[in-house]
């Protein structure tokens, strides 16, 4: 019984607010994300976890679709090839366009080249949102650190607002999953996670667990426990198999 109590202390659920809930006084702070202000009072827009920092107030939503913002690093899928670029499905109500110049480093003569030889329909890319206009016309680019085409692997979708939790402070959570499962994992801020490797089933399980329990404190330890448990099981099983041999 005592154990359960200890665990529940670990599992302390973060504070959750609903639309219209008063969060704090504005007091000159920046209000963004799922928060809005009326006069000097800051309220929540969404069902989520409030965050009050030294100079900003925000609410991290627990659900909702991806709305592109500049400099987001996302995973997209080419949905069509146009004359001067590609349309990219970015797991959002808005689709994005990638011009040839932003997608390819070398010079391309558009009149003579079929640009589907660089990217074709169905290709997955890890790219960056380079421009978002007021009416949400979106441009993505392959320029920038780490942008690349993703070969093979498997893509899963998580709630976009939970991606920072999946990455963890300084990448702690994602690095844990990567190292324990020996998988290559790319996380797009649009909620698409791309996984390649032998143990991808295990990695997927871990990612989905983070998504499910993102509002709980001490999650990294829990995931670590879960991954090591599976390691134990595997080694036990291996041991048994060895015994049989």
């Amino acid at each position, binding site marked *: 019984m005592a154990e359960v109590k200890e665990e529940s202390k670990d599992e302390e659920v973060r504070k959750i607010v609903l639309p*219209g809930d008063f969060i704090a006084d504005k007091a000159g702070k920046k209000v963004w994300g799922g928060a809005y202000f009326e006069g000097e009072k800051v309220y929540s827009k969404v069902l989520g976890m409030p965050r009050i920092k030294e100079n900003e107030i925000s609410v991290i939503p627990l659900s*909702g679709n991806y709305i592109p913002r500049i400099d987001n690093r996302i995973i997209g899928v080419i949905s069509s090839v146009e004359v001067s670029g590609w349309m990219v499905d970015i797991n959002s*109500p808005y689709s994005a366009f990638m011009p040839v110049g932003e997608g390819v480093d070398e010079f391309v003569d558009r009149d003579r080249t079929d640009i589907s030889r660089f990217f074709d329909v169905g290709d997955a890319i890890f790219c960056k949102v380079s421009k978002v206009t007021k009416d*949400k016309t979106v441009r993505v680019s392959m320029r920038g650190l780490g942008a690349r085409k993703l070969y093979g692997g498997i893509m899963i979708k998580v709630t976009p607002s939970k991606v920072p939790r999946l990455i963890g402070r300084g990448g702690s959570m994602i690095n844990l999953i990567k190292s324990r499962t020996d998988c290559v994992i790319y996380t797009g801020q649009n909620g698409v996670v791309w996984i390649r490797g032998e143990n991808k089933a295990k990695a997927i399980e871990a990612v989905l667990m983070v998504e499910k329990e993102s509002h709980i404190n001490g999650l990294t330890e829990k995931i670590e426990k879960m991954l090591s448990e599976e390691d134990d099981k595997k080694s036990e099983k291996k041991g048994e198999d060895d015994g049989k041999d």
Partner: protein
Amino acid sequence: MIKNLRRKVKMMVKTDEKLIVKGKRADGRKLLEFRPIKMETDVVNRADGSAQVSFGNTRAIAAVYGPRRLFPRFMQESDTGILRCRYNMAPFSVDERKRPGRSRRGTEISKVTRHAFEPAVFLEDFPKVTIDVFIEIIQADGSTRITGINATSVAMAAAGIPMRDLITACSVGKVDGELVLDLNGIEDNNSDADVSFAMMPNKGLITLLQMDGRLTKDEFMKLIEIAEKNCKKIYDMQREVLLKKYESGSEKK
């Protein structure tokens, strides 16, 4: 007499019987008492957010999709998103079969539901896209639009749609000369007046106000007061059901 009344209650027709006897209503409630209210989230798997709400025998399922791409393109607004609502009564929701499909009444209720939500939703955050709301009444026994609005509010919050406040609704009216809360089917059919009411409880702003019948100004103001007070009770229930989703370790999905 009661037996006779029960039969009539089932038939949902006009009755000459007294519906309020010694301060008690036909179904045994006090004047200002809700029917048993139940709320549940995540009842439609494919929706971004969904809820089922029942007020006694009235039961509504609301499913919210979006923000999602809007077609045909001429409907797109470049500076704001749009909200589309569809209120529909299932053919089996009433005693006499309801002819399926759109009707004058359904169109009107869809419209007032949309108007009830438009002031609350941050549509300007989503230019060119749509938020779609589908309300299905699977069992009708009075106050269906109210039940639908309450379900939609919970479904929208669950879907992560940015809103200024939750929308909470209730119905009030005048039956047999008495002011009552939460009219059921037979009371609705035999009422002197009924008022549908929706508001943002934290802001104290009214987003839906419809009246049918006759009331004096004093009675009307009294009813608004009753409605405002009782909306807070429903608001607490909406809060509870939404928070319940996240109170334990594993989120229900």
